[in-house]
């Protein structure tokens, strides 16, 4: 791949802005050319798809690019160096926030976990990071921004961080070190040196471009699928259909949503368009957010991976605390809004 320069970056930004601010009218035109009666269901569904699919993909490419560049400053090694030797409290806030900007894949959860323990990062702080990293990420935030607007995106960001910070604080207070697998407890603590890589700015831009190719190249199918399902719900499911069993009055729908969501595994990309359609048909925001958080934050595959370092008991405590946090967020939301 060619190295990105400042000049080509500016051209790309101009192109992106032109596309982004014209999609709405272009999508309208495209749909109006189709031989469909106005206000028909198929037309509603197609209008939703034609507008939202390119919008979300554009937003996603931009955010993944920016985050790919930002990630080059926040390697896991640097994050660990920032967290090592700190005590509970402020460090939990720092850990949760770093969880948002540090690249994280659940397949790396184990080496990351041990790396933190080894460097003397307190367990509760490590958990704050582990809760925030998968739950609050750039993909989730972009989709929320694109499909729900900035208010809900910021709400999700703050509530996700809150669950991660408070969850980590509680887990830290519980003194759970003895429930780590024995071999993890036996790892000698050591001081690790950290040298930051000196990358040129164009090298960082290059990493951003690679991230777009990797991430968008991998998840665009799921996004289109999700938006497709969303479009179908938009066009064909009657208004307020969801209100009776996912509405505010149905308080039990929040725990139910969390229970269904915890073992489920989906990337934010696949779940958010569906969630948006549910919301449009009368589901309550708290219920929907709780569902989404539990799907993205906790999953069976991740727990199986973490079983290598955590005993079953510690995993159970971890899941219950995070799930209760999400449950509370959902319930409070439905009460307040």
């Amino acid at each position, binding site marked *: 791949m060619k190295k990105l320069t400042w000049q080509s970056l500016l051209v790309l930004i101009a192109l992106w802005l032109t596309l982004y601010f014209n999609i709405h009218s272009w999508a309208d035109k495209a749909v109006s050319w189709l031989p469909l009666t106005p206000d028909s269901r198929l037309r509603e569904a197609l209008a939703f798809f034609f507008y939202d699919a390119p919008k979300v993909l554009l937003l996603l490419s931009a955010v993944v690019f920016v985050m790919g560049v930002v990630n080059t400053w926040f*390697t*896991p*090694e640097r994050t*660990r160096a920032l967290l090592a030797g700190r005590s509970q409290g402020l460090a939990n806030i720092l850990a949760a926030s770093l969880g948002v900007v540090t*690249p994280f*894949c659940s*397949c*790396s959860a*184990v*080496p*990351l976990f*041990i*790396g933190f323990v*080894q460097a003397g990062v307190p367990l509760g702080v490590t958990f704050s990071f582990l809760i925030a990293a998968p739950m609050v990420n750039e993909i989730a935030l972009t989709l929320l921004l694109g499909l729900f607007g900035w208010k809900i995106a910021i709400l999700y960001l703050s509530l996700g961080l809150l669950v991660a910070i408070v969850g980590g604080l509680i887990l830290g207070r519980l003194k759970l070190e003895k429930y780590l697998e024995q*071999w993890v407890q036996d*790892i000698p603590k050591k001081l*690790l040196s950290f040298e930051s890589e000196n990358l040129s700015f164009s090298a960082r831009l290059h990493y951003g471009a*690679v991230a777009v190719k990797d991430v968008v190249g991998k998840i665009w199918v799921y996004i289109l699928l999700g938006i497709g399902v969303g479009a179908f719900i938009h066009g064909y499911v009657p208004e307020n259909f969801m209100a009776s069993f996912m509405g505010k009055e149905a308080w039990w729908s929040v725990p139910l949503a969390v229970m269904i969501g915890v073992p489920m595994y989906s990337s934010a990309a696949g779940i958010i368009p569906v969630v948006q359609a549910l919301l449009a048909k009368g589901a309550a925001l708290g219920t929907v957010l709780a569902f989404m958080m539990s799907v993205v934050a906790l999953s069976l595959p991740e727990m199986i*991976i973490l079983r*290598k*370092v955590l005993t079953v008991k510690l995993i159970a405590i971890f899941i219950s605390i995070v799930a209760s946090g999400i449950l509370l967020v959902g319930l409070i939301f439905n009460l307040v809004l």
Partner: protein
Amino acid sequence: MLNIKVLGGGCSNCKIAYRLIEDVSRELGVDVVLEKVEDMQEIMGYDVMSTPAVVINETVVHRGGVPSRKIVEEWFSKM
């Protein structure tokens, strides 16, 4: 001869990285001993926090993702 280890607990990216290194070494005709390291304790011995990582003759040369083909070719040309 190069001793190359691919560190990673069996994730899909680790397999992709392994195959890539295998391919490139065969294409360039470099004499390598390629090894998969999946044991967590051994991986941690290299102080690696993000997998897949690549170790050549006991030095960590790459971590946290599948290396690009160009980077792999550079490793071999330098040796």
